[in-house]
């Protein structure tokens, strides 16, 4: 059942607003007349996204240019965003990097960068956001993790392990804040057709970003805990998680 009062526009903070999935999701919210606060690194891209969402009917759009790897800035940035929105109904964390797996296998600094961006920085943001929401006994934290976090594979285990850490963090956080009226949604997309994946082998078969966005909006409205998207990934990952290690280690995945 939807918990959303459809008459007041929702107040939504989007961290990583220029990612393909974020942009598609925000278009749905904009058409509903939401209030949006958008954060991204690149000012020019952020302005293009903000203009698009205003034109599509968002009742309020504010932006901040920030590098979210800079965790020292997080409290100031988040406080500013919440003030600008005059509250917070949904915080949507969509940013992350794939990184260079081959390089990360040889070079710890590359590995550390992937882990920092995909795990450490979200932990910093979510700590502040969860405490803010707990105080008010309301809010949804919707975070994009990945199916890649469900089991490490040789082709992308650095990206995968950073997302595995994030998924475990979200599970623990949910366990802590659920009784306080705060929802934590872990979103696990399979490969999606976006700027991040364009040019990859087989990318024409990746999931359509608009369909993925629709599922995410729906899962937030229903206060779901976990979303595999497209839904077929849930049984697939169930099987992949349960392949015995002595077989799994021989596979080329």
């Amino acid at each position, binding site marked *: 059942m939807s918990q959303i009062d459809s008459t007041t526009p929702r107040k939504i903070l989007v961290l990583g607003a220029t990612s*393909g999935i974020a942009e598609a999701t925000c278009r749905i919210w904009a058409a509903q007349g939401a209030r949006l606060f958008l954060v991204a690194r690149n000012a*020019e*891209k952020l302005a*293009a*996204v903000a*203009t*698009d969402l205003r*034109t*599509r009917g968002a009742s309020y759009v504010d932006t901040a240019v920030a590098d979210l790897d800079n965790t020292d800035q997080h409290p100031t940035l988040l406080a500013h965003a919440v003030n600008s929105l005059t509250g917070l109904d949904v915080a949507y964390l969509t940013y992350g990097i*794939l990184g*260079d*797996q*081959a390089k990360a296998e040889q070079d710890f600094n590359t590995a550390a960068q992937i882990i920092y961006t995909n795990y450490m920085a979200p932990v910093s943001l979510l700590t502040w956001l969860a405490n803010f929401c707990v105080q008010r006994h309301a809010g949804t934290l919707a975070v994009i993790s990945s199916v*890649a976090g469900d089991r490490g*594979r040789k*082709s*992308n285990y650095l*990206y995968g392990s950073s997302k595995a850490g994030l998924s475990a963090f979200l599970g623990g956080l949910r366990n802590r804040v659920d009784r306080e009226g705060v929802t934590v949604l872990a979103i696990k997309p*399979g*490969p999606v057709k976006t*700027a*991040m*994946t*364009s*040019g*990859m*082998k*087989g*990318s*024409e*078969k*990746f*999931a*359509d*970003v*608009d*369909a993925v966005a629709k599922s995410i909006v729906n899962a937030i409205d229903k206060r779901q805990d976990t979303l595999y998207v*497209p839904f*077929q*990934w849930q049984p*697939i990952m169930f099987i*992949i998680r349960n392949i015995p290690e002595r077989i799994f280690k021989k596979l080329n*995945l």
Partner: protein
Amino acid sequence: MPTASGTTPELNFRTPDEQFEGQAPFESWGRYPNYDANVVPLHWQSDYPAVASGMHNGVLPVGMGRSYGDVCLLNGGNLLVTTGLNRLIAFDPETGLLTAEAGITLAQILDFAVPRGFFLPVSPGTKYVTLGGAIANDIHGKNHHVAGTFGRHVTQFELVRSDGTRKLCSPTENSDFYAATIGGLGLTGLISWAQLRLKPIVSRLIDYEGIQFHGIDEFLDLTRRSQDIEYTVSWIDCASTGKNFARGVFMQGDHSTKRDMLTPSPKPKLVFPFDAPGFALNHLSVSLFNTAFFHKQIHNRVVALQDYEPFFYPLDKVLHWNRMYGKRGLLQFQYVIPWESAREGTITILKEVAKSGLASFLAVLKVFGDVPSPGMMSFPKPGITLALDFPIKPDKSFPLFERLADMTREFGGRLYPAKDAAMTAAQFQAFYPQWQQFARYRDPQLTSSFWERVTGDRPGL
């Protein structure tokens, strides 16, 4: 190549770090010819021209690849796919002026505009084309006789040249580049954004009327009597001879003035699932199809209220309907012949098509009006236009096409580059004598397989 949204993806446990390397096939809608190219998607206006600056072997901006032949192909070159540039920039609900990045599709524009009471000023037979592609091919629709081409409703756009210069183009500013880019086949630069004048509607519905006709004279008579109706088009049976020669169904409609729910469109569900085998299309199956279509309309005249979707985009319901023609693909052939010889030319060409036995399922007949296009290289001019498509049979199709193109030339007509894969350089240069003047506006880094074919060289490389 980009596919329409809403399809279920095949599951594919790909690793995110398997970067694509080298060349990939990019198919045009006709699936002929087959060329490989380096396909690079653009997601931000700021991507261009930086991404193009280091590229060799030519560059061509492309959208949804719905052109049939090779105007959207560049053999061995670089295709910059613009569909990621699909953001809105401004909309004025008073005037209907919409400004958007040029990779937005007409389907996306309709999803935005119809619930707000606006519609495209000109619409082609598919909504899966981009705004930039609609300008570059200066497309036309069922309302050409009253509204002219798409380009007439484009109030301004930005053209980015590969050297980084940006030109604001409108009828009054950089008007020479405005004229060269409308119908300019994507060769004058990248259209980064464009402003379009939408038209108000109060309903999704179309007041529709379908009327059977027998022969070109009945068609012309119906055309004369429907001058005040906004949309008219005819389907014609090009397989029949004798007393059924040139029979067809004349279809006309206006936007309904009864106020109605203005809702967005549902996503298409049917997908043509496989490449049809070659034997599925032959003279018999085409004749049966055409006879069935003609008699589908049981009564001589049908009046109905119809949603705009089936009225404008009957084939969009089936994604990838081009697979119906098998792997070898299809050729389109569309001419316009001016009034002086339009009747005689149409009859002569229809007879030649019927005689060849290479019949077409989708023969579309329409009259172009005299509203001038702003485009230097635009295809439409006053007269009769006929569009035919044929499955490719190498030994038979191309000789037929050459004969039809020569007939078109003798009757003073010309062919539509967006639908062509076969005209010769000599034919093109006779159809579009202004091509050398146009060539002065071409961006030196931009070219297409079509342009190489019809000008006989690969200039600037």
